């Protein structure tokens, strides 16, 4: 199939939409985490059950990307195409497949787990009161087969590109994005339209559109979900951006840790070329655009745009001082726009529906939605897309269903290693770029790690520092040496060797690094320290003044002892990995403190509350 013009796209889309569909559609979640949780055998069982019952014509099975229901993978959705009724099943086992198919799409099968739908699509449905999520970025993710371009075209795919190329001048496209108020979803929140504007006015024979898919923040996986679930939305948006700024080459820089996303991108690019939606003279407009993929090699700092550009150029991924900004002098010293995956995924919807529509969602300063990866000690881990301005409480306690195992909420960490911790007193703040910054954290790429009473905040700060230490490129002194000193001080606190003076030094050095580091990685690396010091000062003080870790995490500050409730069942001794527990049967046992590694296995194993943790 070759689509040569806008009319050809419209008639092809109409043909696909008009094609008779089966009575029932089953969507099977085949993202990385779905597959890891065991979707593949479930899919196989569904296919063979359908074949056995001879239902091939009545049921369509579609392998889709992540539905966002990570807490109950493998998940499947059954849709009745005539009535519109749908049921989502979670934790599906192979043994349940026969019953699920027999039950159909009207009533759930016995003995299965069903999941309530908490999202709506602002594109084509009115919002029900129970739905907190609004899907723009993830509009197709989890609904279409990412490896089939026809399914994307049937969902108005490539309509935005057609509209831009055949009905808009490049500066009109730029102005539309400026007017929409779209801000960079990679973390910084810089207005996307402005970036495009800077690059568009440059006079140069060669310009580049780069997609930053080097999603390195631990705990963030929304870009992976988009690339695995809806790769064409990114390709189409890059082509629109290329037209707007006058670039003919797009580069997707993706991390090597995402093999499935790479594979689906390759398939998508190939299909788009075959259809003439990438390549020469797209829609007979005279505009040429091609996209190539470049691979990262495991360096977190390459998410910083100048470092990313150096990495594409085949060099060490070290950042350089800005200005010159990439929009003026970027890849191969040519004007370059670097946008993140989630940012691109918004572009097509904006061009198609207009800037005013986009601005009607979210807050005045931060229009649109944000995808968050909700993880940690929350009951329902998952990928959620919510309008900006939503309260953290709604995300954690409604969508996430509160804290696991009935424990108490302590903090939520946003913004990854560059962000900070937010406590319960700020749960009702409507969140956008500015309010999160005001709370001492940041939007970041959208990782949201929930922590409960069992997490030691000093240890959490140390964890993030260890991460930055590992990932610092070593180019500037504040980041290379300063962060190491911070890490050492946090170690002293966790080990109980620190004094009040350490705390002062920690604060001062953190501020110095913030002010003097070269790039975003260094400038934000002390954030986890500063924010925990403000919000959880008492925990720092307990470590230093009382020599205690209130959460019972820091190994040097806790010790286990067996009390008189011990009945001598020997369970602890049998479970101890270093054999440091001795005692005869039916006699009270003892822990050899010199050998104990404080792993806590005995504490968890004991059924008689006979082990004290101090």
């Amino acid at each position, binding site marked *: 199939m070759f689509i040569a013009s806008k009319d050809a796209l419209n008639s092809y889309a109409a043909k696909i939409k008009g094609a008779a569909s089966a009575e029932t559609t089953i969507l099977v979640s085949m993202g*990385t*985490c779905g597959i*890891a*949780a065991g979707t593949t055998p479930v899919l196989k069982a569904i296919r063979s059950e359908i074949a056995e019952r001879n239902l091939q014509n009545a049921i369509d099975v579609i392998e889709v990307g992540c539905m966002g229901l*990570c*807490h109950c*993978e493998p998940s499947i959705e059954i849709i009745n195409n005539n009535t519109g009724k749908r049921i989502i099943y979670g934790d599906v086992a192979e043994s349940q497949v026969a019953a699920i198919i027999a039950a159909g799409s009207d009533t759930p099968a016995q003995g299965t787990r069903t999941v309530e739908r908490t999202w709506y699509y602002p594109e084509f449905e009115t919002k029900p009161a129970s739905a907190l999520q609004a899907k723009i970025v993830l509009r197709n993710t989890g609904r279409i087969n990412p490896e089939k371009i026809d399914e994307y075209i049937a969902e108005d795919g490539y309509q935005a590109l057609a509209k831009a190329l055949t009905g808009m001048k490049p500066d009109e496209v730029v102005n539309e994005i400026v007017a929409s108020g779209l801000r960079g979803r990679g973390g910084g929140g810089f207005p996307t339209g402005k970036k495009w504007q800077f690059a568009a006015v440059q006079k140069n024979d060669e310009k580049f559109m780069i997609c930053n898919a080097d*999603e*390195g*923040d*631990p*705990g*963030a*996986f929304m870009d*992976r979900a988009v690339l695995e679930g809806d790769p064409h939305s990114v390709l189409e948006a890059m082509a629109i951006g290329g037209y707007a700024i006058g670039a003919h080459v797009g580069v997707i820089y993706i991390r*090597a*840790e*995402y*093999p499935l996303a790479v594979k689906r991108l390759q398939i998508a690019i190939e299909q788009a070329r075959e259809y003439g939606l990438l390549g020469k003279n797209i829609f007979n407009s005279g505009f040429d655009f091609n996209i190539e993929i*470049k*691979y*990262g*090699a*495991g*360096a*977190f700092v390459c998410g910083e745009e100048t470092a990313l550009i150096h*990495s*594409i*150029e*085949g*060099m*060490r*991924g*070290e950042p350089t001082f800005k200005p010159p900004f990439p929009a003026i002098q970027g890849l*191969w010293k040519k004007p370059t726009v670097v946008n993140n995956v989630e940012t691109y995924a918004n572009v097509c919807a904006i061009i198609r529906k207009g800037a005013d529509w986009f601005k009607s969602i979210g807050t005045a300063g931060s229009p649109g939605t944000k995808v968050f*990866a909700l*993880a*940690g*000690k929350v009951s329902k*881990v*998952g990928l959620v897309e919510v309008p900006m301005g939503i309260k953290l409480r709604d995300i954690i306690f409604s969508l996430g269903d509160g804290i696991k195992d009935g424990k108490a909420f302590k903090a939520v*960490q946003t913004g*990854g290693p560059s962000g900070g911790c937010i406590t319960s007193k700020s749960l009702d703040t409507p969140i956008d770029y500015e309010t999160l910054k005001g709370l001492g954290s940041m939007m970041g790429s959208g*990782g949201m*790690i929930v*922590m409960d009473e069992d*997490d030691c905040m000093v240890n*959490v700060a140390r*964890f*993030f520092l260890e*991460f930055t230490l590992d990932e610092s*490129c070593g180019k500037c002194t504040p980041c290379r040496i300063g962060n190491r000193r911070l890490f050492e001080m946090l170690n002293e606190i966790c080990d109980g060797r620190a004094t009040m003076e350490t705390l002062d030094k920690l604060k001062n050095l953190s501020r110095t690094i913030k002010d003097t580091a070269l790039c975003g990685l260094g400038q934000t690396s002390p954030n986890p320290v500063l924010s925990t010091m403000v919000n959880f000062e008492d925990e720092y003080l307990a470590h230093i003044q009382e020599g205690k870790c209130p959460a019972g995490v820091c190994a040097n500050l806790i010790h286990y002892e067996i009390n008189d409730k011990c009945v001598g069942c020997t369970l602890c001794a049998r479970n101890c*990995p270093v054999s440091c527990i001795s005692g005869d049967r039916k006699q009270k046992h003892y822990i050899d403190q010199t050998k104990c*590694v404080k*792993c806590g*296995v005995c504490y968890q194993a004991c059924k008689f509350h006979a082990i004290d943790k101090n």
Partner: protein
Amino acid sequence: MSCTCDKMPGNDNLIEAYPEKRAELEAYINSLPLSDSPDRNRGFLIQSLHKAQGVFGYLPGCVQLYVADKLKLHLSEVYGVISFYSFFTEKPMGRYKINVCTGTACFVKGANKIVDEFKRFLNIQEGETTSDGKFSLGALRCVGACSLAPVVMVNERVYGNVTAKLVPEILNDCAE
């Protein structure tokens, strides 16, 4: 310039020892749309190294030199790139690469204890390989399967909700 790395201890000359692997790498580099500009050709370095590591398993000096020659770059530039990116290794890896995810979600759910347990069982530290060449132990940052935390990857296989007790079972799965 001829390769002298075979004279270095513990550094096999893989390029001469495996002509079919060399041919595979050569065919790959020859298929790249290289231009006359050495600067632009550097843009193909990282993907060539990915290929080389995929073919040979690791990147000792002779492989680095071979890639450098093919792309007309200095060995120092190639070495600079390899030493910068954590994905590239100059040492041979075990047949089973055990990687414990130490992303935030896994950390919060106790990934450290899993790492300690692997260290204890295998008697090696992070970044090392067992003397029989069967296992190497490493940590990686977030595979994006945070819902299954803590997560362990053995080669391409992902284990979710891992506990210290599961460690011997995972090792048992790695049968020759």
